[in-house]
């Protein structure tokens, strides 16, 4: 929830296995764990919490088609992601996870509801301003890497910056930094087909992280990687989030969702449950006498 990012002293609620949808009446109802102060919108109130949510999705609906053929991909989903927070979205195929990610990244617009990135309502931006926000503040990691084969790793990473008008020299410098962050400092001059699958994935992550991106959106980012390489990818994402970014990770693999601070479950376009935020490692160790 918003507020956990900047305030590690806040003790989370003790884990409660009975915390889920309590009675049958709860089932299928959207779960909002934002608490009683959820109405206090960080983006609206200048005197509100110092920590503005990086992503604020509010009661979003997305319907494809109309009438009898209408498909309700999302039916009233709300999600807040604070700086330093990694939220995983789990659910079966068709539950709406990828739709949620596309909406959060401004790649698609909601049928109803509002999405704010760093306090800016995406719906209020003109197409150019939206494109600029997407290029500068949001990083995307997809299963399909979309690396350009005719560009080197460093050129691929610098591409979003150069599209944004950043000078070539400055773009390359930022690309080197981002490649170093993912452990590929030495391989910037290689072309994608000269890199292993895991290395290509790390280039794609460097491209998503290059510059000053505050919101990272990842859709099954470990793709077909083996479990060790996949874990390395998630460690990178985790480290970037710990350094102050916010991230949403869409996955159907529980082991990957385990890297998140909070896991939300989607079913048929509705959020049905969410795990309570984690405490510190010290608290976990103290309580690990299971």
């Amino acid at each position, binding site marked *: 929830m918003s507020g956990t990012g900047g305030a590690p002293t806040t003790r989370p609620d003790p884990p409660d296995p009975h915390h889920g949808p309590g009675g049958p009446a709860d089932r299928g109802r959207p779960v909002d764990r934002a608490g009683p102060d959820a109405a206090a919108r960080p983006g609206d109130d200048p005197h509100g919490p110092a920590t503005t949510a990086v992503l604020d999705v509010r009661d979003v609906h997305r319907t494809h088609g109309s009438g009898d053929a209408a498909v309700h991909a999302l039916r009233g989903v709300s999600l807040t992601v604070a700086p330093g927070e990694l939220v995983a979205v789990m659910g079966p195929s068709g539950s709406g996870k990828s739709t949620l990610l596309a909406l959060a990244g401004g790649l698609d617009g909601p049928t109803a509801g509002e999405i704010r990135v760093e306090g800016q309502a995406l719906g209020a931006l003109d197409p150019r301003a939206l494109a600029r926000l997407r290029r500068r503040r949001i990083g995307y990691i997809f299963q399909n890497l979309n690396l350009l084969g005719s560009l080197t790793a460093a050129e691929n990473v610098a591409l979003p910056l150069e599209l944004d008008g950043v000078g070539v020299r400055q773009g390359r410098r930022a690309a080197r930094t981002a490649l170093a962050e993912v452990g590929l400092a030495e391989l910037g001059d290689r072309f994608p087909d000269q890199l292993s699958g895991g290395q290509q994935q790390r280039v794609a992550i460097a491209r998503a992280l290059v510059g000053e991106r505050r919101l990272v959106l990842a859709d099954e980012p470990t793709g077909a990687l083996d479990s060790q390489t996949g874990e390395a990818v998630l*460690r990178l994402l985790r480290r970037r989030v710990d350094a102050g970014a916010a991230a949403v990770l869409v996955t159907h693999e529980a082991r990957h969702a385990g890297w998140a601070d909070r896991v939300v479950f989607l079913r048929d376009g509705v959020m049905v*449950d969410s795990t309570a935020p984690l405490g510190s490692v010290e608290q976990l160790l103290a309580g690990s006498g299971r």
Partner: protein
Amino acid sequence: MSIRHGLLALLERGQMYGYQLRAAFEESTGSTWPLNIGQVYTTLSRLERDGLVRPLPESEAGQRPYEITDAGRADLALWFATPISRTDRPRDELAIKLALALTTPGVDVRAVVQTQRTATMRALQEFTRLKYASDRPEDLPWRLVLDAMVFQAEAEIRWLDHCETSLVRHRPAPGPGGRAGPGRPAEADRDGEEARR
């Protein structure tokens, strides 16, 4: 695994007394398996009775170290060489609980599934966080123990997903009151009938 073999494995490193064994046991399982000192002494006396360990003279501080015997080494080697039988593990309470939930009137099985999935996911997050915090080379044994718990939690969640899918196909969805009584065929049931035709 028995505490017995754990203690034998630790004594194979060298002689130790009770408190040292307890500390070493907890360290090697990353404190996930706390032992009380009584369990350690009870186990040691049984091992002694079976000739697998032998007590040494007490130290000046009044601590009595134990060492492993040749019979103990053979027993330990056999343990390492033998796969753990699935029937030696405790029965799966969750599987039994879900089986009973399916046949007990008035129980919202899907809520049982989701509640468990959320709790197991939360545990998986905790294991992952602990793993992330333990990246020194000497943390490897502890990381592998955590990995085992991660994979077990993952397997449980996959199984719960599987149960949920099966429920949609084979069981009437409970109404708002949570009762799936007779005479109230739910959508899922009709789907099931269509599938059978």
